[in-house]
C-alpha cells in the first residue's frame, strides 16, 4: 500500500498549494484528484485575488471589509490571518511565475471589486484562477520527484485507525477501475464545494461535495452550511459566470425601466456592494416585475460603459462567453443575467491551520469552513482563502507528520472490500427504479427553488422533505455503465450520495437559522438578530459521541471569534 506523510485529496488551488508547501519541508507528499489537476474548478475563478499590497492600503482594512462582507459571522482571528498573510502570498505567486497584469510603472495592477473599500484585487485579465492554477501545476511538474501525483483517481472513503484518527483513503483509478488503499499520516481534503447540488450553478460538473460528505460521514462537523452564495451575474439558462470584474471595471446593472436600481439598495457602493446585497436587489427587482427578457426573469448587465479596448484586454473571457454562450457582443450591447448559485461559504469546520475535528484530517479551500467568509464571501477572497489555508494546512500537516510514525490502517482492507462491494452493487442495480440523473436534476431544481436568495420556513420544510425522499430513492437508483474503464456513471452515483448529504445539511441549517444574515435571507425573519444568532451552526452526524450516522444530522452551535470589530449595521 502506498504511504505518504501528507496525502492531499483534490488538486485545485488549495490542494496544489498544500502539496507544494508540504513538500518544501521534506515530507513525502502525494496529491490525488478525480480529474487532471488543471481541470479543477479553481480554473474558472475569473476576477482576481485580494491582497493589501498597495502602499496606501492596510491589511486591517481588507480584514474589516471581509468581516463586514461576512455580515459579522466570519471568525475574525481567521480573517486576520488570511488578510495579513495575503500580500506575501501574492508576491510568492508572482515570483513563481503568475503573469499578473501591471500598471504603467510595472508594478502589480489592482482592480476594484465588490465590498472592498479600495482597489486591492490583483488579476490576470479575467482568467486569474486559470493563470494561478496552471502556474502551480508548473511547479508540481518541476517538483515531480518530491510530489507524487495520482491524477484521475477518485477517493471513495477516508480511513480511520482504531482511535478514530484519519490515516489514509480508499480510491479508484478512474482509468482502470482498480481500487486501492493509501496509507497516510495526514489527509488534507482540498476537493472543493458542492455547487452541483443546485441547478443551475456556475460550478463545474465535478463540484459535487465529495470531501464535505466524506468528512461528515466519519464524524467531522460541518459549519455555516446554510450560507450559499448566489452570484449576481450569471447567465440565465446555464448558470455560466460573468465575472464581478465587469462591474469592477465599471459595468452597471439596469432593470426593465432602464434604471440603475442599485441606487436604491446600496447608494454608496452601487454595483460593487457585496454579492448577497446585489443578488437580493436583483431578485427584488425581478419579483416586483421589473425584470427583463421574455419572462422578465433577468437583469441587464451593461458593460458597454467600459472602454472597448479595456474590455478586450482585461475582460476577454467574458467577451467570448457573451458571444459563445449568449450570442451577445458585450462591448456593444447589454447582456441578460440573473443571480445564480456560485459558492458555499460553509464546509468542513477547521481551525486556522486547516485541522478538522477528526485528528489527522485537514481541509482547505471551499471544502472547508475556517470561517473566513461567514455569511457572505467577498469576490476575489476565495482564491486567497484556498492559497493561504492550503499552504497553512500543508505546512501544519507536514509538521505533524514529522512527530509521528505511520499509523496502522487497520481498517483498510475491510473498507476496501466494502467500497468495492458498494460499487459492484450500484452497477448491478436493476433498471426498475429512477435514474441517477433524474434524481440529481430534481435535487438541483428543488434547492434552487426553495433554498435560494429568499427562503422561508414552508419552502425549506418542503425542500427537506424532498431531499429526504431523494436520499431514499438514491439507494436504488440505477446506472447504465457496466464497465470498469472510465466508468463515469458509477462515480456519478457515488457523487449523488455526497450531494444529497450536503443538501440535507444545508437545508437543516437554513431551517435552524431563524434570522436574516449574509446569504441567508428568511422572509419570515427578515432582520439580523445578533442577540440570538451571532453564532455558527454546526451540523454533525455524531454530536453526542455516538457512532456516525445514527439519528441523522445533529445541530450544535459554536461562537463567532471576535478580535477587533463589533457587529454594526451593514450598509453599502
Amino acid at each position, binding site marked *: 500500500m502506498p504511504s505518504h506523510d501528507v496525502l492531499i485529496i483534490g488538486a485545485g488551488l488549495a490542494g496544489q498549494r498544500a502539496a507544494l508547501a508540504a513538500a518544501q519541508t521534506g515530507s513525502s507528499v502525494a496529491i490525488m484528484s478525480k*480529474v*487532471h489537476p*488543471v*481541470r479543477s*474548478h479553481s*480554473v*474558472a475563478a475569473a476576477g482576481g485575488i485580494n491582497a493589501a*499590497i498597495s502602499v496606501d492600503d492596510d491589511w486591517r482594512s481588507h480584514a474589516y471589509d471581509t468581516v463586514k462582507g461576512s455580515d459579522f459571522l466570519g471568525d475574525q482571528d481567521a480573517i486576520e490571518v488570511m488578510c495579513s498573510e495575503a500580500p506575501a502570498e501574492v508576491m510568492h505567486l508572482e*515570483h*513563481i*511565475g503568475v*503573469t499578473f*497584469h*501591471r500598471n*504603467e510603472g*510595472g*508594478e*502589480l495592477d489592482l482592480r476594484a471589486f465588490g465590498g472592498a473599500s479600495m482597489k486591492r484585487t490583483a488579476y*490576470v*485579465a479575467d*482568467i486569474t484562477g*486559470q*493563470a494561478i492554477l496552471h502556474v502551480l501545476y*508548473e511547479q508540481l*511538474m*518541476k517538483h515531480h520527484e518530491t510530489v507524487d501525483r495520482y*491524477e484521475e483517481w477518485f477517493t471513495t472513503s477516508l480511513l480511520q485507525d482504531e482511535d478514530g484518527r484519519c490515516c489514509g483513503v480508499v480510491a479508484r483509478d478512474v*482509468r482502470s477501475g482498480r481500487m486501492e488503499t493509501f496509507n497516510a499520516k495526514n489527509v488534507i481534503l482540498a476537493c472543493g464545494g458542492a455547487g452541483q447540488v443546485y441547478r443551475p450553478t456556475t460550478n*463545474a*460538473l*465535478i463540484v459535487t461535495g465529495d470531501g464535505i460528505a466524506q468528512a461528515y460521514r466519519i464524524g467531522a462537523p460541518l459549519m455555516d452550511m446554510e450560507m450559499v452564495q448566489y452570484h449576481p451575474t450569471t447567465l440565465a439558462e*446555464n448558470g*455560466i*459566470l460573468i465575472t464581478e470584474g465587469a462591474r469592477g471595471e465599471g459595468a452597471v446593472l439596469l432593470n426593465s425601466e432602464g434604471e440603475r436600481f442599485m441606487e436604491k439598495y446600496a447608494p454608496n457602493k452601487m454595483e460593487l456592494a457585496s454579492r448577497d446585497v446585489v443578488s437580493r436587489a436583483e431578485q427584488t427587482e425581478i419579483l416586483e416585475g421589473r425584470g427583463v427578457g*421574455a419572462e422578465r426573469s433577468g437583469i441587464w448587465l451593461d458593460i458597454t460603459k467600459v472602454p*472597448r*479596448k479595456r474590455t478586450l*484586454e482585461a475582460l*476577454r473571457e467574458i467577451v*467570448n462567453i457573451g*458571444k*459563445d*454562450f*449568449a*450570442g*451577445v457582443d458585450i462591448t456593444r*450591447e447589454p*447582456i441578460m443575467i440573473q443571480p445564480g448559485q456560485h459558492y458555499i461559504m460553509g464546509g468542513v469546520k477547521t481551525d486556522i491551520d486547516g485541522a478538522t475535528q477528526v485528528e489527522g484530517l485537514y481541509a482547505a479551500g471551499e471544502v472547508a469552513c475556517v470561517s473566513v467568509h461567514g455569511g457572505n464571501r467577498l469576490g476575489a477572497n476565495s482564491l486567497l482563502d484556498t492559497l493561504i489555508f492550503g499552504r497553512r494546512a500543508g505546512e501544519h500537516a507536514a509538521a505533524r507528520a514529522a512527530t509521528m510514525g505511520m499509523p496502522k490502517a487497520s481498517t483498510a482492507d475491510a473498507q476496501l472490500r466494502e467500497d468495492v462491494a458498494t460499487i459492484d452493487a450500484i452497477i448491478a442495480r436493476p433498471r426498475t427504479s429512477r*435514474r*441517477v*440523473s433524474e434524481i440529481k436534476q430534481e435535487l438541483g431544481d428543488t434547492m434552487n427553488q426553495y433554498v435560494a436568495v429568499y427562503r422561508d420556513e414552508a419552502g425549506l420544510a418542503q425542500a427537506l422533505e424532498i431531499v429526504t425522499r431523494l436520499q431514499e430513492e438514491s439507494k436504488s437508483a440505477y*446506472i*447504465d*455503465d457496466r*464497465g*470498469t*474503464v*472510465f*466508468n*463515469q456513471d458509477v462515480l456519478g452515483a457515488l457523487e449523488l450520495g455526497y450531494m444529497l448529504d450536503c443538501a440535507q445539511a444545508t437545508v437543516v441549517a437554513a431551517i435552524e437559522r431563524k434570522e436574516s444574515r449574509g446569504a441567508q435571507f428568511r422572509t419570515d425573519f427578515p432582520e439580523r438578530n445578533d442577540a440570538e444568532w451571532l453564532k455558527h451552526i454546526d451540523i454533525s452526524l455524531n454530536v453526542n459521541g455516538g457512532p456516525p450516522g445514527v439519528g441523522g444530522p445533529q445541530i450544535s452551535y459554536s461562537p463567532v471569534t471576535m478580535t477587533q470589530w463589533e457587529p454594526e449595521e451593514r450598509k453599502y
Partner: protein
Amino acid sequence: MPETHKPPEQFTLRLRRFDPESGVAPYWDEHTIELEPHRSVLEGILQAKADADGSIGIRCSCRAAICGSCGVRINGEPGLACHTHLDHARAGAGADGVIEVEPMGNMPVIKDLIVDMDAVHWKKVQRVTPWLIAKQPVPEREYLVEKEAMVDITQSMACIQCGACVSDCLAMEVDPGFIGPAALAKAYRFVGDPRDDEQDVRLRDLAEDPQGIFDCTHCFKCVEACPKGVNPMGQIMRLRRIAIDDQKIVDKNNGQRHEATMVGLIKDYGLLHEAEMVPRSYGGNSWFGKFHPAAGKELLASLPVAIKGVLKGKINPKIAIFGHKIPAADLKNVQRIYDKVESRPERYELNLYITGYDEVDEETPVPVGTTATNGDDESPAAPDTEGSAA
C-alpha cells in the same frame, strides 16, 4: 438588445464509441436529443447520457470553455464540445445533418471520446521545462516588468491544455516526436516572460532539437483548432524570430536557413522557386549557394522525391526549374511589402490581448513595447487569431 433564443429542436448526434473491455471494434452510436439550437454539443451529449445511455464516455467539467476537458472532433474538426453550438455543428455536418463526434486525433483512445493526454500532450509539455526559471535575485516585492509584457504572454497563458491543436497537428501526424503546438506555445510563455533567466538556453534547446520549433510546417491547423485564440503557430513563429534575429541561433538542422530561403525566394520571385529551394537552404540564401557542396548532396538526395513528383504530375519540371512567374508589377508590390516590413526599426508582433479582434477597430493599434518579445502588428497578413469566434 440581444435577440431572443429559438425554441428547442431535435438534433441527432453520431458518437464514436469504443469500449476497450468489450473486444469490439469502435462503432458509431446515434442519439437524438432536444435542445435550443444555440446550446452546446456537450449539452447535447450530456442529455443523451442523462436520458438514454450513461455509459457514454466524455471528460467534461466546467461547460464554459475554461477547464479544457471536453476536446473532441466535431464533424472532423477539433474543438471543445462545450464551445460548439448545436446549430453550427449541424450546419457543418454531412448531407444527413447528423453531428458526428469523435475522439481527438494524435492521441490513443481510452474509451469513447476520452483520449490518453498523458501519453502525448503532457509528455510534450514536460519536455519544454514548463516552469519559470526566475531571474536572481528575487525581489522583495514584484518583479518590475513592462505592462505590455504581461499582457503579451497572457495570450499563451490563456491556453487551457485541451489538446485540440495537438489533435490535428499535421507535423505531429508525420513525426509523432514533434514537440507540437501546445507545448511550444507553453514554451513561448517563458521565453516571452521578462522574469525568466534562461531564454537563450530555452531557445537554443528548442531550435536545435530536430523535432523543435523548425519542425512546424506552418499549416495553420492549430490556429484554427484553438478555442481560446492562443494561436500556437504564431507563438512558434515568434520563437523562431527571437531565436534567429535576437539570439542569432543558427540551428544545425538547417531549419533556420530553410525558413530564410523561403523568405528570400518570395522576395526574389514573388512565388516559390522549387529548384532553388534545396540549394539555397543548404548552401546559403543566394544564387551562388546552389554550388555549395552540401547543397549538391541534398539536391541528389531529394531527386527521388522530385522524380516521383514529376511522374505523378505534381511537379511541372519546367516551372520547377525555371520558377513561377508573376507580372512585374505584382512582384514590385511583393517587394514593397518586404521593404516596408524590413525598414521597421522594431519587429511587430500581433497579440490578441493587445489588439483585440482582428476586425477593423475604431482606433489604430498602437505599437507597443521595446523589448524583443512583444509588440504590435498592423500587418493585415498577421495570422487569424480569432479562433474562438469560429
